[in-house]
């Protein structure tokens, strides 16, 4: 058995993956209406190219990128634009979206889906195809992928890591994708290597997905340039910096990027999207979403068109169970709790998690007894107890000295906290205040 790689710190929450891990990805009837946010990625929002009353085809560009760190968005169904306005957004409360009413025919834009002869494409053309397809990191942060694939002069990338750790409890979309589409993922890896002029790639998977590891190994049989790296089951194994450290023993410098240590990390779902974008000219208009949790009647992995209202997915899964408490987009450790289910699925939505009061308790906070569990588990080597106390007293610059800006908000500290102090809440608040203060100074 190969050595399981890992990192320092971290926690072991129950995984609850059995709810959906064994269920193949299903297709469900197309939504009647989609709400496609112009901002689904990190960076500048897209600019709308359509207006109310326009008819659009599936895959048609409806918003163009407004800069290098920006992405276009595409219609995910064919039909009529019924509104361009502000609607509830899973990350930004309210944001501008294009609402499309389906014509039930799902007519695709010309030229999508036809195989492209990629041997004739230059790396720049491939990168351009990825950008044109609106591909963003699909693990959650949704950073534009073509930017990650454009290291500045002088940064040589020697290791590409495909992230199949899927360390968040409940989520299974990457697991299913690796099981059902390993060739596409491995092909995406090939394109990434070509663009970066890099030789070495690996796919990193937590060992709680032995079937996925076996399936990938079978698919790469004989290819020496790609290895499947088993990872110890520990959260946050799939966090970019921890993953790079686990595999290469290199540490991304504080404030730096993976490319500073010669690495590029892409989620396996992103690799899949890259393959589709370059080989089939297919824009990122659908993704796998795990609709799961004890609060949903029949949890499933679903192919979802971007912009589909979450409510519709819940209905596809038999509706809510009784005692629902939280609706979370993403996993239970880092996901964002929603106030409404009228939000759409976006490119970074890996899971829709419905939690009950029992599975997601909100215990009252007690005084910090300095048990030190947060310090022990922090994968970034911070002292969350000190940072939390400093933020409570609005001592932001001292919190900065204690490294609050290095925090990756993985949630380990708050998870293990004996006193149930809402450390991530405090840290997010502290970071925001520091950012605002920085902006004021900048003006």
């Amino acid at each position, binding site marked *: 058995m190969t050595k399981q790689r890992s990192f320092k710190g971290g926690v072991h929450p129950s995984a609850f993956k059995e709810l959906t891990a064994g269920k193949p990805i299903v297709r469900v009837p197309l939504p009647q209406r989609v709400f496609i946010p112009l901002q689904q990625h990190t960076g500048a929002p897209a600019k709308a190219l359509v207006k109310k009353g326009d008819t659009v085809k599936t895959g048609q560009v409806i918003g163009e990128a407004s800069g290098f760190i920006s992405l276009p968005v595409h219609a995910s169904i064919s039909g009529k634009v019924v509104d361009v306005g502000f609607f509830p957004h899973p990350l930004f409360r309210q944001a501008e979206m294009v609402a499309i009413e389906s014509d039930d025919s799902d007519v695709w834009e010309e030229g999508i889906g036809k195989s492209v002869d990629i041997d004739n494409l230059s790396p720049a053309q491939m990168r351009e195809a990825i950008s044109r397809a609106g591909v963003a990191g699909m693990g959650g942060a949704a950073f534009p992928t073509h930017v990650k694939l454009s290291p500045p002069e002088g940064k040589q990338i020697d290791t590409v890591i495909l992230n199949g750790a899927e360390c968040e409890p409940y989520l299974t979309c990457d697991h299913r994708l690796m099981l059902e589409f390993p060739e596409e993922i491995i092909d995406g890896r090939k394109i990434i290597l070509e663009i970066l002029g890099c030789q070495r790639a690996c796919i990193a998977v937590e060992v709680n997905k032995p079937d996925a590891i076996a399936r990938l190994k079978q698919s790469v049989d004989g290819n020496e340039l790609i290895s499947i790296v088993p990872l110890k089951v520990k959260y946050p194994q799939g966090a970019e910096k921890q993953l790079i450290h686990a595999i290469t023993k290199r540490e991304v410098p504080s404030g730096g990027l993976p490319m500073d240590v010669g690495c590029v990390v892409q989620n396996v779902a992103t690799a899949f999207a890259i393959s589709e974008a370059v080989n089939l000219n297919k824009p990122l208009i659908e993704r796998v979403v795990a609709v799961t949790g004890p609060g949903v009647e029949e949890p499933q992995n679903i192919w979802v068109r971007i912009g589909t209202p979450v409510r519709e997915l819940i209905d596809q899964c038999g509706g809510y169970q009784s005692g629902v408490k939280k609706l979370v987009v993403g996993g*239970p450790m880092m996901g964002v*709790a929603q106030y409404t289910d009228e939000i759409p699925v976006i490119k970074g939505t890996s899971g829709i998690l419905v939690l009950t009061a029992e599975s997601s308790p909100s215990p009252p906070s007690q005084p910090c007894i300095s048990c030190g569990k947060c*310090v022990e588990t922090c994968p970034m080597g911070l002292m969350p107890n000190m940072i939390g106390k400093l933020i409570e007293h609005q001592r932001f610059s001292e919190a900065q000295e204690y490294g609050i800006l290095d925090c990756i908000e993985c949630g380990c500290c708050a998870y293990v906290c004996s006193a149930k102090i809402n450390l991530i*809440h405090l840290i*997010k608040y502290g970071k925001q205040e520091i950012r605002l203060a920085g902006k004021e100074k900048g003006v």
Partner: protein
Amino acid sequence: MENTSSEPKFTVSAPPHIRADTSVTRVMYSVLAALVPAAAGAVYFFGPRVLWIIVVALVSAVGTEAVVQRLFGRPVTVTDGSAAVTGLLLAFVLPPGVPLWMPAIGSAVAVFVGKQVFGGLGQNPLNPALVGRAFLMASWPVHMTTDWLVPRGGTKSVIDAVTSATPLSVLQDNHRILADPTSTSAQLAQAKQVLMQLHSASAHWHLFWGKCGGCLGETSVVLLLAGACFLLYKGYIGWRIPSSFVGTVFVLSWALGGREGLFSGDPLFNILAGGLVLGALFMATDMVTTPVTQRGKLIFGAGCGVVTAVIRFWGGYPEGVCYSILLMNAVTPLIDRWTRPRKFGTRR
């Protein structure tokens, strides 16, 4: 958009949305549970009056916490179990023969001066139970150093011939006799005889099982270990502080504790006797008053060990565990500052 009546109302909060199944209250009650074997042992060894000392200490600690919190206008949180832990630990560090007003006053001082004046749970710099003990020691030293009882099936000093004191004070007294140029040869011979018995295997076993004089909770090493194993298993105490504390005392007492030059001491005796095991397992591991960093914990334990050895070998008291922990408590914030973990992606 339509709004059906079956629409659930969602709670919105920052992540994480799942929490480890633990709480401060559970930590405190686990510590109490871990102390039960030693408490039962104390009742067995010293008789039922020990039970009264424990009850008085507990009631006084919990009552003081409730009254003070009410007076200070704070929420009354006695059900979190932290005051009870303080009360029980205070009882553990009293001689079993003390009058019952002593645990009452000791617990009240421990909770009020040791904890509540600093802001309550989590805010106190020093271990409250040890603050209570230090107060009693300074106020009624005679009670605190003479009210020993004979344990069932044993003797106070683990030596049949010596009936007065605890093993550690016997050790100190006889070391004094040997070092004193005015001692007669008969005295010297007897002192040597006593020390030989003290360092015999049978004395070690008495100390291990608890058949010796001492504070009521510190006598039985085996029962303390049983409780500590439970806490270790639950992750409520770590191995770092106890092992560096005990390890340091072991090395120092071996190297410096003997009379025949370096490495002639009896480290086992020094570990088993007195309050070292109780202190190292249950007081130096108090979360609130000890470092949070891994290296800090090792330094803290080693510091406790050094101070304990210094007091035992060269100080005026036979025992130094209480003051060693209090002293190291006081420098805990500094230790935490010096031993900040290395931030990922930075050099130390």
